[in-house]
């Protein structure tokens, strides 16, 4: 048997296991290969999706801003230092340096969707760390940044960047919304931002969370003693391009609310300040703002504040991954046994005050 006698479905199965980089290269092999790889050949897309689902290693980026340690380098060639942690195999996979030109690293927002990263400041760029592809978006039409979100609409099959900006009309403050769309190969759908919505002005949380076609921001209340005492959420459906306000369970004193995606659902964690006590709700019904209390975790005797990041599935056992805010390292909480453990390889991992963790899935390095 020769390779050219390999039936198409077997070839598809083999190709679907290749990293993105090889696949893109092989579009040059022949017209047949090109159409097999780049057009949505149903078998290929299916095989690819199956492969991606099997590759369970969820990787995380720690958006470590600041220059690359080189004080003399000017702003034009500063870079973003990124550590990638493989939370499934419990090790630090790699440290990256992503060049970011002309950007002030201190006001960075880094959000992710699938295997793409969106780096936002005055300029907004999208990059794929496994392929090193990068696209810089046209400048938004409006100044006055309020919040930014990044997600994927499976209906229109495009990535969307949703940006809220401040506007003042007749002395009244409001916020407008503009959207930019990209295909999965980082190609622009059009060259400009699309204006959609105007809403009453709100303070939005910096990290947004994307779950199943919807972007969520916490609405922060500046009149509260603590800025992060949020009691509602702004949701934006990427298929319908419709916003919605979701109310949240009441925050108890001395706790901070965090949004997190676990198991493809939106979760709200109330983390006690100073103690490792976390109460976690799952958003059961978005329309009716219905939350279900799912976990109550108390390790106040052994550690300080912890914040949930994600969950991993080892065998059939689910573990929630937490980061200790003041201490060091990542913590794994086994939801079945209720036990907490600290993987040795990840012990030295710390989060600095200006850093936000960011979750990437299906990456290949």
């Amino acid at each position, binding site marked *: 048997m020769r390779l*050219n006698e390999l*039936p198409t479905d*077997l070839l598809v199965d083999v190709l679907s*296991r290749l990293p993105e980089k090889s696949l*893109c290269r092989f579009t*040059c*092999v*022949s017209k047949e290969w090109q159409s097999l790889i780049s057009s949505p050949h149903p078998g290929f897309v299916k095989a690819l999706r199956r492969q991606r689902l099997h590759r369970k290693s969820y990787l995380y980026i720690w958006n470590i801003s600041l220059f690359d340690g080189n004080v003399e380098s000017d702003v034009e060639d500063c870079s973003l230092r990124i550590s990638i942690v493989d939370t499934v195999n419990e090790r630090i996979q790699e440290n990256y340096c992503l060049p970011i030109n002309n950007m002030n690293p201190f006001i960075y927002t880094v959000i992710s969707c699938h295997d793409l990263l969106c780096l936002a400041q005055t300029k907004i760029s999208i990059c794929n760390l496994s392929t090193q592809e990068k696209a810089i978006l046209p400048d938004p039409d409006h100044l006055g940044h309020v919040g930014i979100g990044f997600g994927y609409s499976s209906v229109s099959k495009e990535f969307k960047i949703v940006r809220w900006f401040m506007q003042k009309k007749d002395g009244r403050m409001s916020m407008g919304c503009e959207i930019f769309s990209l295909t999965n190969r980082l190609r622009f759908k059009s060259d400009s931002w699309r204006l959609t919505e105007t809403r009453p002005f709100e303070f939005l949380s910096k990290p947004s969370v994307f779950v199943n076609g919807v972007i969520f921001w916490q609405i922060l209340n500046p009149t509260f003693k603590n800025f992060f005492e949020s009691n509602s959420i702004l949701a934006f459906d990427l298929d319908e391009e419709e916003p919605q306000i979701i109310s949240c369970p009441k925050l108890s004193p001395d706790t901070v609310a965090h949004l997190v995606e676990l198991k493809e659902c939106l979760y709200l964690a109330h983390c006690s300040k100073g103690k490792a006590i976390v109460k976690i709700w799952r958003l059961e019904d978005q329309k009716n703002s219905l939350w279900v209390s799912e976990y109550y975790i108390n390790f106040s005797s052994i550690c300080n504040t912890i914040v949930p990041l994600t969950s991993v599935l080892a065998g059939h056992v689910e573990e929630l991954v937490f980061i200790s805010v003041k201490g060091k390292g990542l913590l794994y909480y086994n939801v079945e046994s209720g036990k907490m453990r600290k993987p040795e390889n990840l012990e030295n991992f710390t989060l600095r005050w200006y850093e936000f963790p960011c979750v990437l899935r299906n990456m290949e390095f």
Partner: protein
Amino acid sequence: MSSSTELTEKKVFLLKSLDGVIFEVEESVAVQLEVIRELIEGDCARPFISLYNVTSEILALVIEYCKHHAETCSGGTSATIADEDLKTFDNEFMNVDENILLELCSAADYLDIKSLFELTCRTLASLIKDRTIIEVRKMFNVENDFSVVEEKAVRKEFAWAFK
């Protein structure tokens, strides 16, 4: 093999390859071939099971693979040792000529042996992952039907992938 299994009479199946060679296999090995398992479960297994798509050379390899996997899994060794053992075996088993690998892949597909199919596909993928375009064309015997201009355009589009 423990002595207790030897006391009971083992059920044996005869598999006939494309080129007429007959292989005698035990049930524990035969059931790993999903197609044969279905026959056995449906009580349709005849003394001779003809496999029209597999040559004797490949069938011998397939049986060797299934035999090793059946023995390792039924042996008294702990799961981790068995796992390690299978990994070593699989690695060595994949150390074959490209054409054999392809035949194995296609046989695993036809005989519906999931683990072998997975293993061969994975091996093939890692084999071609870093090859150049010219090597891949040669390997798969594909003719380059792009014009010079067209090929240049495609290469430009995916310039990052060639770095």
